């Protein structure tokens, strides 16, 4: 504290200073007020007439008109997503004399819930009386008919139609096609950030999942405008100008919906997924995740009960297992690893070793067991793939080392997004020393490498990644990108989209690639092949690889007994394959959760799907032939 004497002395000086400053502030305030008033005077007196005219001319309103969303077809021209008219019952309060009586008689005529009426009254408070407010959405055809017959009794009540999305194939395509639903706050915010809100001014729904979400920009189109004249009460008198909206792009997908439906039938009640790719282009022929759900509920606002059921189900239907399910790839990646070993010169085509069922390292007590307890005996690379020998690959992984494995498997796309045109995708995990250090702060152990040799350990991959990697194998290093979009329909013609591809994998010796592919053929055609039974007597020649992935690790000296294990802890059954062998058309990847062995469970399903594919192709060729016959 300053001494009191000084404080008192300063008090007057301070007061004077403050008074001076206040006075200046007062002058500034007055000056600025004058500025405001003079500007307002300019607007209201000098330019009054000008603005008066503009205000009177302000009878023209521009109303946005929503574009029709682009349609989606499968590769054979079958409609997968269409726009159907839906009807809503609209009430204009101003035109109704006795609102309560009207609502009551409407409720007796149609089924109207109390919730609808409450919502209606709530909306009425917020809107002008001459604007129609919808009382009930999604009227059934019967309700539309009933109301139409009685419409003369209800002045001020009308039925309005708008187009809403419908998915005729329901749950068969949900994970890949996705769905649209009402634009919510979050969507609006995103649209605002993208400066795109004007384009959605009249739009009701937006793509929320799958292709509908990924290709939203393509499918939506551009808003149109209707210039209308309104009277002094704001009612529309007439339309002055109409700028039609540009409808969204109609698109064609690589999907084959018949194949997709067959896959859904095959997978039945399982937790599973199947991916089928065009072996040459990477186009997605089918991509299905089970269990699925009906997307049409989401279009019209799913009830919270139904949504909670989907959300809390232990089968997790909302997840797209084909692109988001991360599974240990197990033995399905043995061909890839063998190729890495051959190309690196760690093994050659004739390298042999004796598998006694127990792989051991010097000075390490741990025993890595083969899935056949007594081993496969003398094996080389080809036979190891055919019989899915673990011993051989333990040793191969040991000699390759994790760095080389990581390098080669990264080339095949493991541990990275496939680039498919879906946002719902996981990248899986291709482990490395650096990854383990960052994730667990632990060094990489040699034991980790050995487990990686049979596609276990920290290695996870999605069924889509596996299919993509097989495509790279059969195309001898050419790398395709899985793509759902096939083309756009312009003036009735389908303009194909360019198929994306990546830089090819470097081929050191083409014989190595041929050997690996021949081994995959042997998986089916050699007497000891793991998928021999499943693929017996097919009319086409296919090749593949089975895999059985441990979900929980088994303690040393304990044997795996499916009967004793909790159902959710049973092995995942995996299968990858392609056909025909000489000129591959289709690549398939099957993953069945907790189903058991890859050869016994996944391979038969893959076979059924391939059978269907080739049979369907035969039928189409026959149909084409008969129709050309008729033409002649």
């Amino acid at each position, binding site marked *: 504290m*300053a001494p009191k004497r*000084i*404080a008192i002395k*300063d*008090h007057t*000086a*301070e*007061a004077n*200073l*403050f*008074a001076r*400053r*206040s006075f200046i*502030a*007062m002058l500034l*305030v*007055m000056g*600025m*007020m004058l*500025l*405001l*008033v003079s*500007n*307002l*005077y300019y*607007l*209201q*007196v000098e*330019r*009054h007439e*000008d*603005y*008066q005219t*503009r*205000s*009177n001319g*302000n009878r023209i309103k*521009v109303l946005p008109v929503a574009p029709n969303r682009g349609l989606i077809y499968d590769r054979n021209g079958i409609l997968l997503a269409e726009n159907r008219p839906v009807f809503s019952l609209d009430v204009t309060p101003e035109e109704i004399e006795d609102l309560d009586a009207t609502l009551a008689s409407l409720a007796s005529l149609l089924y109207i819930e109390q919730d609808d009426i409450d919502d209606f009254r709530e909306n009425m*408070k917020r809107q*002008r009386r001459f604007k129609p407010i919808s009382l009930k959405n999604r009227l059934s055809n019967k309700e539309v008919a009933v109301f139409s017959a009685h419409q003369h009794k209800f002045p001020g009540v009308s039925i309005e139609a708008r187009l809403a999305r419908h998915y005729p194939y329901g749950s068969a395509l949900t994970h890949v096609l996705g769905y649209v639903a009402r634009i919510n706050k979050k969507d609006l*915010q995103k649209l*605002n*950030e993208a400066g795109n809100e*004007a384009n959605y001014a009249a739009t009701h729904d937006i793509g929320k999942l799958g292709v509908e979400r990924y290709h939203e920009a393509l499918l939506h189109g551009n808003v149109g405008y209707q210039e209308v004249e*309104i009277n*002094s009460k*704001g009612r529309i008198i007439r339309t002055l100008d109409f700028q039609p909206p540009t409808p969204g792009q109609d698109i064609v997908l690589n999907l084959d919906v018949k194949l997709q439906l067959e896959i859904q039938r095959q997978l039945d009640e399982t937790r599973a997924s199947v991916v089928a790719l065009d072996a040459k282009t990477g186009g997605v022929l089918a991509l299905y995740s089970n269990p699925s759900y009906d997307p049409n509920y989401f279009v019209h606002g799913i009830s919270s009960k139904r949504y909670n059921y989907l959300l809390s189900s232990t089968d997790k239907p909302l997840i797209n297992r084909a692109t988001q399910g991360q599974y240990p790839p197990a033995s399905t990646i043995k061909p890839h690893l063998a190729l890495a070993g051959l190309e690196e010169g760690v093994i050659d085509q004739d390298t042999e070793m004796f598998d006694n069922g127990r792989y051991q390292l010097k000075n390490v007590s741990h025993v890595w067991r083969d899935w056949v307890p007594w081993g496969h005996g003398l094996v080389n690379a080809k036979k190891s793939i055919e019989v899915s020998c673990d011993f051989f690959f333990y040793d191969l992984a040991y000699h390759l080392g994790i760095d080389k494995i990581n390098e080669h498997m990264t080339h095949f796309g493991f541990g990275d997004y496939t680039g498919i045109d879906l946002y719902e995708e996981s990248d899986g995990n291709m482990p490395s020393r650096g990854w383990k250090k960052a994730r667990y702060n632990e060094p990489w152990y040699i034991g980790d490498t050995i487990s990686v040799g049979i596609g276990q350990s920290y290695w996870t991959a999605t069924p889509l990644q596996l299919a993509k990697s097989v495509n790279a194998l059969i195309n001898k290093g050419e790398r395709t990108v899985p793509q759902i979009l096939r083309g756009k329909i312009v003036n009735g013609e389908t303009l194909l989209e360019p198929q994306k591809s990546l830089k090819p994998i470097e081929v050191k010796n083409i014989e190595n690639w041929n050997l690996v592919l021949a081994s995959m053929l042997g998986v089916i055609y050699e007497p000891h092949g793991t998928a021999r039974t499943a693929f017996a007597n097919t009319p086409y020649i296919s090749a593949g690889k089975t895999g059985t992935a441990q979900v929980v690790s088994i303690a040393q000296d304990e044997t795996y007994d499916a009967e004793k294990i909790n159902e959710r802890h049973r092995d995942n059954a995996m299968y990858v394959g392609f056909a025909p062998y000489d000129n591959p058309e289709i690549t398939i990847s099957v993953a069945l959760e907790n189903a058991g062995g890859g050869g016994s469970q996944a391979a038969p399903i893959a076979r059924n799907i391939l059978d269907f594919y080739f049979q369907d192709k035969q039928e189409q060729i026959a149909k084409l032939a008969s129709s050309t016959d008729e033409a002649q």
Partner: protein
Amino acid sequence: MLGLIALMAVGLATIYSAGGQDLALIQRQIIRLGVAMVVMFVLAQVPILAYQRVSIYFYIVGILMLLGVLFFGVMGKGAQRWLDLGFVRFQPSEIMKLAVPMMVAWYISRDNLPPKVLNICIGFAFVAVPTLLIAKQPDLGTSLLIASSGVFVLFLAGMSWNLILLVGALASAFAPVMWFFLMKEYQKQRVLTFLNPESDPLGSGYHIIQSKIAIGSGGVEGKGWLQGTQSQLEFLPERHTDFIFAVFSEEFGLFGILGLLAIYCYIIVVGLFIAMRAQDAFCKLLAGSITLTFFVYVFVNIGMVSGLLPVVGVPLPLVSYGGTSMVTLLAGFGILMAISTQKRLLSRQ
């Protein structure tokens, strides 16, 4: 006091017209006014010494909450301004509107006036921290109000003219830096639109054009209450909040505006008068700052609605519909009343 009530009445009448004659809207506004009035009267009873003592804590709590907003804030209308305390959501930036002038006034009044250069610098720092935090939310309007409330304290405290010129020069040098590094795309857009509203008549220039048409077509006498076509036909956006002045001008004309501005001037003059007669430097500075900030509200709002200033979200004080700013404003007047009455008590003793 009379002035405040007159303003509120004007506000209610205009909101009624702008909101499409919705009584529920009026009801909510009356409830808010009631709450705000209670806050005002309670604050008017608090002893001045208490204000002086809590200034620093009040300020620190405010800053902490602003940091809280930055990290845990709730998004609303594309900006992160709200803090969710479970039972209530509010904007800490509103607190700062009072905390900043209190803090600066308290700090500056510890020494004799006029303040030393060092103290002025520290004072500026007290202003700059919350201003930048709020500008980052982003809320340009509020950060502007807070900055000016703090700067007014320094100005009234007798900061030398040379320094004022220097700060002015620095501020104008800072403007291009703001433009290129700090302002978001939509904020730049607003400024560009302000410079040339006709460039995008259906997009972002729409507000300004429609608002000017509303004001201009009101003329000298106005179109009459509930008769403004611009507002009644919903050509005017944000009719009952930030652009309420346009509705008022359209319906009541230049005469109405002069009357409204007279009420504002009356309140400002009374406020400055209270400040001059206040007992000590802290009270003088705080009262002066509250009054002048009130003026900034008026000036910025009317300026933006009539096209003199770019559009920043500042309401017309006590007239615009809305809760939070109303409470802060009347809280400010509560402090003003405390300063005024307690002065009288002292002088009688």
